[in-house]
């Protein structure tokens, strides 16, 4: 059911350094460390084409998704909805810690969180949510029409049929790069930091 315009080109499979994944995005793999049974994380490298859709940023401005992703910074992306009470808060808390730990590199990284419940998540609700998670200036939240949100979810292999079926996912890409690092599962802030630093090094 994934959209046609995204293609798997798994050039590297590193389940935090171990066994190969049978399918990208399948987060049920073997552990790397003693905590990995409780926190399976699968990292892959995948090519995606960013769909040309209009989203509404948390400041109320209509923006183009490709333009937001091509402003000279690396992109770190996730999908959330503000009334999620289980793991979106964890993903957002992880983003906050990650953004803080970036230090001076913060300016070089654009954090983007796209709502998968755009009709509920108005720009005002997204602002409240961003405030709750102390989002710094380089972290924006996005809503828009349902169709636009779906297009973005499908393009990044994040669509799971409905918002309640979502799975934890972070994607990141160096500025201007074609390929993305896709991290399925609950990555910690320091894991995001280490992935991101590698991207910044080649940028």
């Amino acid at each position, binding site marked *: 059911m994934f959209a046609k315009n995204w293609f798997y080109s798994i050039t590297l499979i590193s389940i935090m350094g171990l066994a190969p994944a049978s399918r990208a995005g399948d987060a049920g793999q073997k552990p790397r460390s003693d905590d990995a049974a409780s926190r399976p994380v699968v990292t892959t490298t995948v090519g995606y084409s960013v769909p040309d859709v209009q989203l509404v940023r948390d400041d109320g401005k209509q923006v183009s998704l490709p333009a937001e992703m091509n402003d000279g910074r690396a992109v770190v992306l996730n999908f959330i909805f503000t009334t999620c009470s*289980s793991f979106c808060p964890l993903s957002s808390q992880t983003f906050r810690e990650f953004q803080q730990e970036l230090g001076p590199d913060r300016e070089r990284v654009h954090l983007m969180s796209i709502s998968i419940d755009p009709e509920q998540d108005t720009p005002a609700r997204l602002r409240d949510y961003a405030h709750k998670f102390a989002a710094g200036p380089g972290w924006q939240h996005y809503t828009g029409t349902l169709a636009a949100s779906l297009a973005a979810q499908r393009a990044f292999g994040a669509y799971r049929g409905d918002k*309640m079926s979502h799975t934890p996912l972070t994607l990141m890409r160096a500025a201007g790069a074609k390929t993305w690092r896709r991290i399925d599962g609950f990555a910690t802030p320091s894991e995001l930091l280490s992935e991101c630093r590698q991207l910044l090094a080649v940028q």
Partner: protein
Amino acid sequence: MLLVALFAAQASAQEVADPVGEAIYRRGILPSGQPITAKREPDLQISGGDAACSNCHRRSGLGELEGHIRIPPVTGAALFRPRVHDGNVGAPPNSDAAYSRRDAYSKEALARAIREGVAVDGSQLNYLMPHYSLADADMASLIGYLKGLTRFKSPGVNAGVLHLATIVTPDADPVKRRAMLDVLDHYFADTNAAALAGGLHSRSPQGAMSMPNYRWQLHIWELTGPASAWDQQLRTHLEHEPVLAVISGVGGKTWAPIHRFCEQAGLPCLFPNVDLPVVAEHDFYSLYFSRGVLLEADLIAHAITGDKRLPAAHRVVQIYRRDDIGQQAANALRGGVAGVDLVDRPLRTGNGKQQLAAALRDIGSRDVVVLWLRPQDLALLAALPSVHSRVFISGLMGGLDQSPVPAASRGVAVMVYAFDLPDHRVIQTDYPLGWFRINHIPVIDQRVQTDTWLACVLLSETLSHMSDSFVRDYLVERLEGMLDHQMLTGYYPRLSLAPNQRFASKGGYLVKFAEPSGSRLVAESEWIVP
């Protein structure tokens, strides 16, 4: 007094086993008033409401499936049940037949799971489970609360019968009342006919889908007198006729006493026909299809402040009747257009035509008129001089497609339409309309009848996902979870709920009548979510 005491005793026995444990579980608050604290490795701290157990395990304690992460049940029955090897894999988590792959927790093992994230078998719990810092006394309160959590079936469930109520207020429109009751009667009869045949679910050849087979029993709670007297009447009804939930219902000027009662009694109130619901999204038990006229007010505010094609409005003139829901809608619009010159011109009882003429006397081409009026008042416009300004009409109050907007006003009148467009919803409404036809149900208020039918369909589908875990809180939680999947959505383009989301449809259109007469509408806007 006796009834009140009885009611209170019943409620406390079932719901408030341990208030300290409940405060920790539901709100993340310690007896000292301090927030609970917890962390996830390596160093993500959470506290208070963000760390409340109910966020994931839910109010019922029966857990949730989030993507592919199974958030397990934490009810007493689930935690302290011994290992069962030959149980029914498909059985609900709190049923006696359930399958348990691990040993029962002891209090000590459970405390370790809560503090260190280690399961009874020594394995690590999912990363999503935080590690809590709880003093021994607080831990004991929490475990005591879990022991009693969702221990009983809800009232209104017994011996093959599910008791359900519907509520009618004395000021409800008699046509809408009849329209709703007719649909409920037939839907319940249909459900019970299928139950007599053993139920559809019993036809699975494997038998793995063996579902309990319940009849539905409808109790009609007709309220009388002023709204201030309803709470007592509802208590008496619930005392004499315990029910699992309230299904549909029909209200008039206020639904607030019923909303409050259901919240206090812990009684799900599912999709009543009310145009002025209570907006309290952190309440749990009342679910609505939409915010009704309050959504309309936001749609009009969006159009007035956001539409660049409109002339800069000189002022906005709102006309409504003091004793109708238009007054609250007008207040909501006032709150949504800060900085706009806005004038209210309420009509009193009595000569509507004269008053309407007076209210419209000085309307100029740069004014915007908002009519929160019923069809009988809108029909009076035909005998008045034409208004040459932008006019917004409440679709819900004005009669939607059947609204008697006079030909001369159809060029300027825009109706707020918080439903899918008639052309778009043809396939959706074909199904209920066909069902009305084969059941010989006269269509006297298509929208109310379709909404009532849809409420029954949603209830029926949700119950079929609950096996025999007929628990009030779980019913609401399952409805939240399954609504996004719903293919039958009646008048609405889609329905969606979540924790702290109580209105399933969030937007609407602006429409105009296509011709000087007739009921054909054309869209003036895209679907707007204000």
